[in-house]
Structure formats: C-alpha cells, structure tokens
C-alpha cells in the first residue's frame, strides 16, 4: 500500500484515532496501540497544562504516538487561534486539528470561522488539519489558504451514522490536491472501508472504538477495514453494472 504523506510526515497507517469517551486511560492506550494508528488527536481542554503529569498525555507520549491536539470547545476563530498557540507551546507540535463548533449539540463545524482561522494559523506556521462540513467549495478554499488536509464529516460527531455525505465526499476527493481524511460519523468498520474504497486518504475514528463493548478488538477491526478499503482502492474496484453485458456487442462490426 502507498505510504500517506501529510506535510513533513509519512504514515503507514491510514487510521487516525481519538482519545475521548474511553472508560479508562489504560483501555485507551491498549486500544490505540492495537489500532496501529500513528496519529492521535486529543482535546486541549482535557489536558492538564498546569501539571506535567497529565494522565492521557502520559500514555500517548509513552506509546510514541504523533500528537494532534484539537481545539474542541472553541466557538470562533479568535478562540481557536489562541488555543492553537497554547497547544503548540505545551505539546511542542505545530500540528493542529482545527475544530470550531459553536453548536454544542451536534458539534457541527462553522465553515466561515474555520476558513478565517486556517488562514491565520497557516501564516503562523501551523500544520492545519481542519474539521469541516462535506462542502467541496469550502474544501478548495481551505486548500488555497494552505491547510495540510481537509477533514470532511461523514455524519455528525459521535452519531455512528456512517457516510451520509458520501456524494459530497466523492466530489471533495475528486477535486482535492491535499489528503482528504473522513472524520466523524464513522460508526462501523464497513463505513471506514467504504470511505477508503472511495479514495479517502485516511479516516479518523473515535466514538465507535471507545464506546464499543471491546475497544481493543474494535480497534483491530477498524485497522483491518481501513487496510482492506485502501487495498481495494489501489487495486481499482471493478465497475458496477446494472445490466448484463450484451453477448453480441453493438460494435462488433468495427473489428
């Protein structure tokens, strides 16, 4: 399988993961290790910046994951930029998952503020991975201002509803010159495989692993599904046909 490149890093695994909703720090660590994920996102608001011995962080650093701090909780560009700078200082990484959701229920991203913040953050030297609606025009605009990827949603965060935005995601993938990571709503390994078969560069999964009865096994299931989907994409899926092929071709007279 092709190696995935984002900014200055390469990834063997195309499964990105999150740290929320796990029943314990130990379980989170075990599941993330089993997933073989190489990029893990965590909410800045959950990390204890005052004390150096933060629980979540300790596990992630020990297991040598690449850290992707996110700005979950901020409601506008100004707050996001401030949070990003704190994250860079505290975690010593300029990678950032930019999340701006003023709506605390469905956590739907604010495209207008995201674009504004992305522009500033790129100028300030951040590697920006923005969480956005599956909006092809917005994704092109983000690419134009220099984000490292786009992260369109499949369905609302935590909904486990799968790729309800598949038609738009297909257009985003077709048009994008930067990696497309399908984030949010992926509730089953089959959803992840579907996104990868469509040509997404990676997927980000959290709730479906964390909330499962057996997060470690579910992490492995997602790992395999992402690999299967990617291999199928690279091997080129056979086209679908609704009709049987005619046994006497219409163009036989041309040969």
């Amino acid at each position: 399988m092709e190696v995935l490149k984002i900014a200055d890093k390469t990834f063997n695994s195309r499964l990105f993961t999150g740290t929320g909703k796990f029943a314990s720090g130990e379980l989170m660590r075990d599941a993330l290790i089993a997933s073989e994920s190489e990029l893990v996102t965590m909410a800045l608001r959950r990390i204890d910046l005052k004390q150096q011995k933060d629980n979540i962080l300790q596990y992630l650093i020990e297991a040598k994951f690449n850290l992707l701090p996110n700005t979950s909780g901020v409601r506008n560009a100004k707050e996001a930029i401030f949070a990003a700078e704190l994250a860079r200082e505290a975690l010593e990484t300029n990678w950032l998952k930019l999340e701006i959701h003023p709506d605390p229920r469905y956590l739907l991203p604010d495209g207008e503020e995201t674009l504004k913040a992305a522009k500033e953050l790129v100028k300030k030297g951040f590697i920006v991975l923005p969480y956005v609606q599956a909006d092809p025009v917005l994704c092109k605009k983000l690419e134009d201002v220099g984000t490292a990827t786009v992260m369109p949603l499949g369905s609302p965060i935590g909904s486990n509803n799968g790729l309800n935005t598949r038609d738009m995601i297909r257009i985003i993938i077709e048009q994008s010159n930067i990696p497309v990571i399908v984030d949010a709503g992926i509730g089953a390994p089959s959803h992840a495989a579907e996104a990868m078969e469509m040509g997404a560069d990676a997927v980000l999964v959290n709730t479906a692993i964390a909330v499962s009865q057996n997060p470690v096994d579910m992490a492995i299931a997602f790992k395999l599904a992402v690999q299967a989907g990617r291999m199928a994409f690279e091997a080129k899926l056979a086209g679908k046909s609704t009709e049987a092929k005619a046994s006497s071709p219409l163009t036989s007279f041309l040969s």
Partner: protein
Amino acid sequence: MFIELINTYDWQNTTDLIYSKTDSDVQTALQFKNRSIDDFMALISPAAEPYIEEMARQSQMITQKRFGKTIQLYVPLYLSNFCENNCVYCGFNTENKIKRKVLSYDEIKEEVIAIRKLGFEHILLVTGEADVKAGATYLKKAFEIIKPYMSLISIEVQPLKADEYSELIKHGLNTVYLYQETYNRERYSTYHLKGNKSNFENRLMTYEHLGNAQVHKIGLGILAGLEDWRTDSFFTALHLNYLKKKYWRTKYSISFPRLRPHSGNFEPNSIMTDKHLAQLIFAYRMFDENVEIALSTRESAVYRDNMLKLGVTSMSAESRTNPGGYANPELNTELEQFSVNDDRTAAEIANMIRSNGYEAVWKDWDCILQ
C-alpha cells in the same frame, strides 16, 4: 420570551394531561428516536412506570454513545451564607437565626488550595443572595483568585444583570446554575416570601440574559418537594427546549435537587421517590441526548453508585455546604445550607467510578479557551 410561552399553558390542565397518558402513548414514546415534548410527557407519566427497565436500558445506551463511559467530577465552594430572601425551604433563609459568614479573599484562596489537593479542576461557587456582601464585584475578585488553580468555574448565585454576566464570562465564568425552583407561578409566592427571589418573572427573565451573554452552559432545575414533580419537570423540559433552540451556542445541564434536612421546619409538599427520580432522569436522556445530567451529594451513596451508569454525566463529591468547610472541616459546621447525604471523599468517589468501569474526569475545560 419563555414567559410568553409558559403563559399559554395552564398548570392544572398540564397536570391532567400528564396523568391521562396511556400505555399506548408510552409505547409510542419508547419507539421513536426524535422524541417530542409530548413523548417526554408520556415518559414521566405514571403510565410509564411499568417500563422503567426499558427506559433505563435506552438511557444507558444513549448516554454511553454521546458521553462515553465517563463521569465528570465537580465540587461546590460555599462563599457566603448571607441571604436577603425568605425562601421557606432553605437553610440560608434570612429569617433563620444562624451564624452568617462571607469568605474573605484570603479564605477563598485557602479553600481553593485545599480543594485543589483533593484533585478537583471544576468548581461551583455558591452564595445566598446578598448583592453588597457577595455580588458581581466580589465574584469577579474571587474568580481572579481561583483561576490559577481551577480549569472550569461555575456559579450558583443570585440572578445578575446581563452586563454583569458578560463581564464575568471574560473573567472565566463558564456555567451558571439557576433553578426556577418551581414553574407554578401561583404557588411560587408561597415558597418565596421576601426578597428579589420572590419575583417569579424576573427570575425567569434571567435565563434570557444568560442566553444573550452567550454563557457556555446553563443549568436548569426545580426543587423536588415543592409542587408535583411531573408537572414541574414538564415545564423544565419545555424551558430547555425553548432555550436550546433560541440560545443555540449554549450547552445545558439539568439537576434534580430533592429537599434535604436543613435549618428551619419546612416539610415537602410532594414526595419524589428514588424510583421517580430514576424515571425522570431516563426520560430526560431519551428526550435530549446532549443535555448534561448532574447528581449531587444530596443523594445517597447507594443511589449514586447505581445511577452513574444510567444517564448521569456529572457528580459532585466531598461537598461541604458551609463557607470555609474545606480548609477547616471541623469549624463552622453550623453554617451549612443542608447536610449532605453521600459524605465519601473525592478519592473514594473516583475509585467507585473506576471500579464501575467508568473514567472519573477531573478536567474537561480550560479557562484559556474562553
């Protein structure tokens, strides 16, 4: 305004409607995902009581999906027990001949340091209503002292003015808990005899100020023990529905204070049993996947241990309801608002949560994010 909406309802009619819900209304409410306020009414009705196990199952599933297996911990800090109101059910009642105290800024610091040692990052500041002794200016200074030690500051104090909320948000205010106590306008005045709190409409208007100030979270609740909990909870849900549509940037939380022994001699008018409270919590969760649900130390250890997996998202621990109670636990116990029921330490509560297969979350915010 919510006041206009609530004016279109009649208390007695609403009560009758709830009590006339049938088995088939409940079954309909159990089946559908996007539940209406009418479904909520069925779920809190007596007709839903036989379905409590099914409701618990659904509530658990929805909560785990939305919040994971986590319980957030917070601690109340009582800053002052001075109060100008005469609320018949409250220990801080201005007529009660009890010792009064407002913490000095030095004492606040002492308390916060003691609280920090217990592990807490989320703090809830509580006062009686005394604008001069413990108003917005006092709170602002308190925030400045507390901010270096805590990640999330909430208040449960008298209603403030809209511009005071905006100012406090700039200084770190995240959540405001404000309980209407009862939505029965006629009976409201029989519980709130004197002081600013005796004005039903003004209190209700405060929620609009909070929404306009874009406070991060608003906590709603009634005091169970005053009026029929079913009718009062219906109006709370109606209020929640109204607020979340109008003030869509704000999160919401529901609490369920039940009357506890306190100074004074008010006896509850209506009893909410453990089973009723469970039914109500499940109904809220099925009505609103996102609303946060808090269960305080007013409830017993056994009850809290069992409910933590069934819909609750946050819990207080090691609460002392007397100003100064953390740094000097032995002093001033006669100042307390009510006696807590679950008196385990924060560490014991955190261990209990973990032993139930849940993560005890101390920190889920940062003052720097606002």
